[in-house]
């Protein structure tokens, strides 16, 4: 029974990780920007939702929209006013990474000042666990999480294969100049990428707030998962990042059957290490040894 419980928890966590990782992978795969501030996007969306829904008592659709707006605006502004400035004179991986890192630190700490450093939860009617079977506790939120993930990926898939924007996005990863064929510039397209990528983190943030709660420092963990999933899934493969996110969520939860909770984060990294050592290309990616 424990195993089934962990399995279901794993699917719930995995679904959310898949969404977050897909957002990061989309951004990194197409723009080559190591956007570690993606974790900050997640935290921001979560806390905005908390503020609007729990503190100011807005209706949840409005609160969700508010969170989405915050995430989208943050992502696009960071690209427009920070990354593009840097890329104009120095496109080195290092410089962009450090700037992103600095931003993540700033946002995380601003949130800590505003909301305190403790855990913050968003109680909703669906958050309460129901005992489905003796010893098996599942909250309806879990189903919502999985459903959200499926819908989001469905939309993403449609976007990538049936719209001009989607095709241009895929072109951007291969050959930036090709993008002009679609009537867009790489710069403009980059902003769309950050928009979509940031939005992908929003459902995960809201659902996490409603299930396990939020704290300002969680951006770190989110980033760890995003990077790990992107590498394990294969750089340039959204499908890979999503699958890897799911698997990492499963692994994190299932491993609790054998090891203490403190080590579950380590499990993610052992998996990552093994992939880097033996299969740097990940599941679906191209091998990227230098």
């Amino acid at each position, binding site marked *: 029974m424990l195993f089934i419980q962990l399995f279901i928890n794993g699917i719930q966590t995995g679904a959310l990780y898949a969404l977050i990782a897909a957002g990061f992978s989309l951004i990194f795969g197409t723009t080559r920007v190591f956007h570690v501030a993606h974790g900050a996007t997640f935290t921001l969306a979560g806390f905005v939702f908390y503020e609007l829904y729990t503190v100011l008592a807005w209706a949840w659709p409005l609160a969700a929209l508010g969170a989405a707006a915050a995430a989208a605006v943050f992502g696009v502004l960071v690209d427009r006013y920070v990354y593009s*400035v840097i890329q104009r004179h120095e496109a080195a991986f290092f410089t962009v990474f450090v700037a992103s890192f600095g931003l993540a630190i700033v946002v995380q*700490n601003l949130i800590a000042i505003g909301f305190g450093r403790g855990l913050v939860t968003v109680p909703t009617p669906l958050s309460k666990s129901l005992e489905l079977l003796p010893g098996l506790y599942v909250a309806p939120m879990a189903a919502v999480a999985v459903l959200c993930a499926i819908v989001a990926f469905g939309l993403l898939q449609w976007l990538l294969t049936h719209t001009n924007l989607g095709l241009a996005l895929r072109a951007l990863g291969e050959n930036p100049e090709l993008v002009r064929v679609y009537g867009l510039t790489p710069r403009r397209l980059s902003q769309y990428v950050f928009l979509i990528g940031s939005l992908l983190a929003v459902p995960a943030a809201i659902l996490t707030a409603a299930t396990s709660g939020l704290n300002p420092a969680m951006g770190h963990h989110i980033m760890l998962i995003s990077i*790990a999933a992107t590498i394990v899934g294969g750089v340039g493969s959204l499908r890979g990042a999503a699958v890897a996110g799911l698997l990492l969520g499963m692994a994190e939860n299932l491993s609790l059957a054998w090891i203490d909770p403190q080590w579950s984060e380590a499990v993610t990294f052992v998996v990552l*290490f093994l992939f880097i050592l033996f299969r*740097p290309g990940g599941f679906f990616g191209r091998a*990227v040894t*230098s």
Partner: protein
Amino acid sequence: MLAYLQNIAVLFCVNAMLAVTLNFIMGYAGIFSLAHAIFFGVGAYTAANIAMHFSDSLLLCVAGAVLVSGALSMVLALPALRVRGEYFVAASLGLQVIGVTVFSEWKSATGGLGGLVGIPPPTVFGHALATPGEFLGLAAGGLAAVLLITTALLRGSFGRSLMAIRDSESAAQAAGKWVAAVKTLSVAVSAGLAAVAGAIYAFYMSFVNVEGFMLETSILLMAMVIIGGTGTVFGPIIGAALLMLLPPALTYLPFLPPSELGTVQQIVYGSIMVLLMMFRPGGLVGGRRKRGKA
């Protein structure tokens, strides 16, 4: 007052040693590590254990710390050899996270969350270091040694090989450079010398616990190197000095509640990092261009 200044000076030396050794791989080899605090910690715990259970000779403890840390760095070196920068950052992050968990859980070696207390002072030629002045001498000596070793390596053929690899790995290979060996050695040197700082820190505080070796510390060290200027000799030292002055400087601002100091400190250097990357990627010492000269 003197005691206060001596304390700051010792901590400055330790931080500067860490910043210089991190700069060794970041600024010159182009290897970005978020796990530097772990090697600091490994050095501290190893030296403490040797002193507590075996011998309190300074030489032995430091040697042990360097060896263990250097050996552990092979774990980090392996991914560095095979994959590009982005992947390496992820691997180092993984090592940092796992390392903290190991430090917190391995009670027999690290004392778990409580840490190790009562670390005996180290002995040099039979004399146990006791006064703050003596510890300052140790710390300053450590910093001088680290600077000497890293500069000697960087000014010589090893440094040239390192920079060649950083500028174009394929051309360095075509020039006959055994890239894997150079990278591995640079990671080992960086980790080993960071362990020296760890040993000095453990002896000075006579107490170590995991708090000093967490992700926050690795981030702080990276900030010191970046803000001071990667790939320069004085950059990391200036970065260390500045970021150490920050917390005391902030206490002078009346409107800041003391409980928020750590947070504000992080906001300040986070913002500095962003602004520097936008307008002066070479850091304070480096200037507009990122240089890499010893």
